[in-house]
């Protein structure tokens, strides 16, 4: 089985193939000597037999489908699964539109962009007041604002689409 992931700005390809009672692992085409022991739901103890290095890792799906948060020791690593047709753009991420959603019920205090604006990753796009605090929501990646779906003053529910970036 073949898995392609985007981590930071790099793409990594992992294959897992059953071999007897175990799985053969490759990373970017190179066989990896690694021991993975499941120790709970979404939790593994990974060990590199050559060095003895041991890492407890947890994997949690953070959105429907393609995004995971992986913790390795105390590092948190966002991982995005890429499911492009093999052979088309091999290993490259398929960048669909990025949706900025309200993370909790609240009120839109300020909208900082308008449709057509070019935004950088981490640039603030909307300020929502919730839990008695103003929270600036940021663009998850660079792009162009396709749509601003709310007005200032609007009450929003958790999950409401605020801004769409392409």
């Amino acid at each position, binding site marked *: 089985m073949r898995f392609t992931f985007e981590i930071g700005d790099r793409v*990594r390809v992992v294959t897992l193939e059953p071999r007897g009672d175990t799985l053969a692992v490759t990373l970017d085409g190179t066989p990896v000597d690694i021991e993975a*022991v499941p120790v709970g*739901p979404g939790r593994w103890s990974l060990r590199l037999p050559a060095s003895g290095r041991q890492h407890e890792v947890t*994997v949690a799906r953070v959105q429907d489908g393609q995004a995971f948060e992986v913790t390795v020791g105390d590092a*948190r*690593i966002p991982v995005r699964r890429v499911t492009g047709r093999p052979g088309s753009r091999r290993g490259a991420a398929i960048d669909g539109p990025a949706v900025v959603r309200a*993370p909790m019920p609240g009120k839109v205090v300020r909208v900082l962009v308008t449709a057509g604006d070019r935004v950088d990753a*981490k640039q603030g796009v909307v300020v929502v007041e919730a*839990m008695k605090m103003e929270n600036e929501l*940021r663009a998850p990646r660079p792009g162009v604002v396709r749509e601003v779906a709310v007005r200032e003053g609007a009450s929003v529910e958790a999950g409401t689409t605020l801004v769409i970036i392409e």
Partner: protein
Amino acid sequence: MQKLLIANRGEIAVRVIRAARDAGLATVAVYSDCDRPARHVRMADEAWPLGGNQPADSYLRIDRLIDIARRSGADAVHPGYGFLAENADFADACARAGLTFIGPSADAIRLMGSKTAARRAAEAAGVRSVPGTIDPIPADAPESEVLGVARDLGFPVMLKAVAGGGGKGMRLVESAADLPAALRAARSEALSAFGDAAVYLERRLVNPRHVEVQLLGDTHGTVVAFVERECSIQRRHQKVLEESPSPAVDARLRAALAEAACRIARSVGYTNAGTIEFLLDADGTFYFLEMNTRLQVEHPITEVVTGVDLVEWQFRLARGERLTIDPQAALTPGGHAIECRIYAEDPDQGFLPSPGRIHRLRPPCGPGVRDDGGYDAPGEVPVHYDSLISKLIAWGSDRGAAIARMRRALQEYDIAGVKTTIPFFTWLLARPEFLAGEVDTTYLDRVLAARNGEPFAGPCDGLADLAAIAAALHAHTQQTRAAAPPATAWLRAGRLDALR
């Protein structure tokens, strides 16, 4: 005192229930609609519904709390912190209903609750306040008048709510041009938060530290002060990490702070637990800032360095017992303690609250570590309240040992389902300025601004390789499971066995 109603929720309700149990008191929890399955409810002997979810509909409902106390037969009430803890009307209502209110008198709450009256009380007791306005500036005072006062003090000035607390209605005003907008904002915030738009002005000290003194007072006139707490690590005027003792305070200054704090408390006949907050200038001059007439969030670090259980003493003092704590021992730090406030917030999204379901929670344990938490797994951090999950306290024989322990404990902390401030603390505890103890109340906001949103715990390259493999294993397990419904993730994963 036999049965205690805890008029609060979350970690402080859990903390007070533990203390009540240690003291042999029966416990009555109260809960809003969304808190029915909450940890504090499940720990208590009895639990009674307040209804509602918003604080105003639930934990702030004095009428319902008094009614529940009556129906449950509770004879004492602990308010925790926040909610009604500094509400004199609640203390009065308890007294009228024949309930022992675990805290100071309603008069003391009322007096020190007015920040300008408190400043006058401090001055009267011979303790410097931060230079500023003596009287409240009423809601209808014209801008020009306020501007004149600010000019007399000298810019920059701090604009604060008279009825304030917790950074609400507070504004830093750099210059005369900024004053009108800041005044409007502060008045409006103060009005909505406290029902009182009156404000006052203080001179802005240059990079002061926040140092505070915990007090206990009995009803026989004795007041004891404890080793100071250093709370300069603040984000937008909110404390996020506290330690005791302060790296900036020596035994002489400690004695002077304690003496000043006791003088103020005695002058107003203060009883039970309270805290006097000071600003400490770079030259060692300290100024009275305000008094908190309740248990503070950060009280455990004082407990850990002095061996005194402050909540137990709150019970005893409320019963009229005499303070028997040796004042010299209370001022002698036994080692060093640090507290990190573990919030359900995403530090990589500007500390955006991250309420929701906690799937997995394993607090750190072992030597020198104390976790005062309010949740277990599965559990739900509601959107309606402060998102504090737990307070993690580390103790060491000295500051370095306490920091090392805290780093170890943070590494051990396992919370899944919500984002937390743990990665932020891991970063902070490695900052050279923090390690050197050279911080002030502006430090954190400055360094956070300079980082400009850079993630706190991003991928190192080697770890990213492992993350990719782990994600593949997870996806593989999930996909395989999908074809065979009755197996749980765990069993299925067990069958996958070791990879080599």
